[in-house]
């Protein structure tokens, strides 16, 4: 079964440190409020995305790998 990556940014926590955008610039960008946003989950490896999430000074990024089928059911 295919696996997909799901990324959630907690906007109560995100402080706009820009560490994720420096570590994984293809995946993370900044929104108009200067907080992190997801550009495209498929543009880098899970390893790099995890590194960006772990580098977040306030742990505002949650990364999960889920089954595509379940993901489909959820939406």
């Amino acid at each position, binding site marked *: 079964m295919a696996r997909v990556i799901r990324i959630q940014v907690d906007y109560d926590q995100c*402080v706009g*440190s820009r560490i994720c955008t420096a570590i994984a610039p293809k995946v993370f960008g900044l929104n108009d*409020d*200067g907080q992190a946003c997801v550009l495209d989950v498929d543009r880098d490896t899970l390893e790099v995305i995890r590194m960006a999430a772990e*580098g977040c*000074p306030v742990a505002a990024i949650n990364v999960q790998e889920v089954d595509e089928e379940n993901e489909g059911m959820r939406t």
Partner: protein
Amino acid sequence: MDQSVKNMPEDMLAPEALVNPECYFGKLREDDPIHWNEQRKMWIVTRYEDVIWICRQPHLFSSDKLGFNVKELPEGKRDLYRERYSAIYSAYPHWLSAVDNPLHDHIRLVVNQVWTPTQVEKRRPRVRQFINELLDEAEKKTEVDFIRDFAMPLPMKVILDFLDLPHEDWKEIKKSSDKWLFYHFGGGADPERWQAGVEGIKGLMGYVEPHVRERKTRPQGDYISALLKAEWKGDRLTAQEVTVHCANLLFAGHESTMNLLANGVYLLLSHRDQWDRLCNDPSLSQTTVEEVLRLEGAIKSMLRYALDDVEIKGKKIKKGELVLLVGTAANRDPAKFTNPLATDIGRRPNSHLGFGQGIHICLGAPLARLEVQETYLALTQRFPNMRLATDTFEWHPILRGRALKALPVTLR
């Protein structure tokens, strides 16, 4: 000025504003949230949304402290200062909180490889041990100055332990650190401050430097060795950069934590219901720390200067002008916080600005949170009857920090 502002103190460092900064900044937040202060020649920004917006625009608002201090020097004196105070000129470009990008990211992204929440968390048992040792000593006295006897030594021991450096010299380091503080939070053109800055930075770096050199030759399993080896996309830190960074940690690792620890005890003991609440329910310790950071954090305000002309809500900030971002006022903004003046140690959510915001968000935040949380847990469990031993408190007359001169308490 607007009618409703007439009762506010004349200056932000007036005695009543030092005791209660809200009586000055709260008025501004209501009546003129982006305010030009002619006397101090700076903008004062007090609303939450404006403070975070500016913090998140590092390309428009600079943190370059040396650049700002040099700008205050008369043109004819700049070469002389560069020569006379060269120690400051060589250290500042590597001082994380005082540089802009790309220098900032170069340091932060490498440091980020080794300064991780997991590494910090590993220190918890050691921090508990230090706390209990200091409390065992303090307990022997009838009256304790919580700052002198606890809040000053604890963060010093913790940061030295984190860096695997010997603890015995902490009083010497504290002296250097205080000199650096005098320059770092003041500066201007005052030669006395620049001289103190040189002595301070030389003292801090001179202490760290031999240890960095030793670990460069013989790497160990410690933070400094890891940092010397750390790499981000082929980028590493030089021995000089590591030395300045460790000096920065020694300074920032204790000064603000000391004040945070003390301010929180002051806040909780002067809101007895909240102190008792924590005594009865230690599971509130994490949210307690956040509420202390919101209401009585160690940093009242942050300074930036505009790199370009910027217009915010009809106010025209000109290139080069100073902007004071008042976190303590933003943290009481009713547009962001429900019942903002109430102390509620269970408050959630609590997106305060106690550690700043944006690229300069406090690096040491996880360590500070750990120290403060463990301290309040230990105090409420060991000394539930702890009391303030005075009802008059003196605050240091400083713009950016929130710091008590002493905090007399009785433990039992």
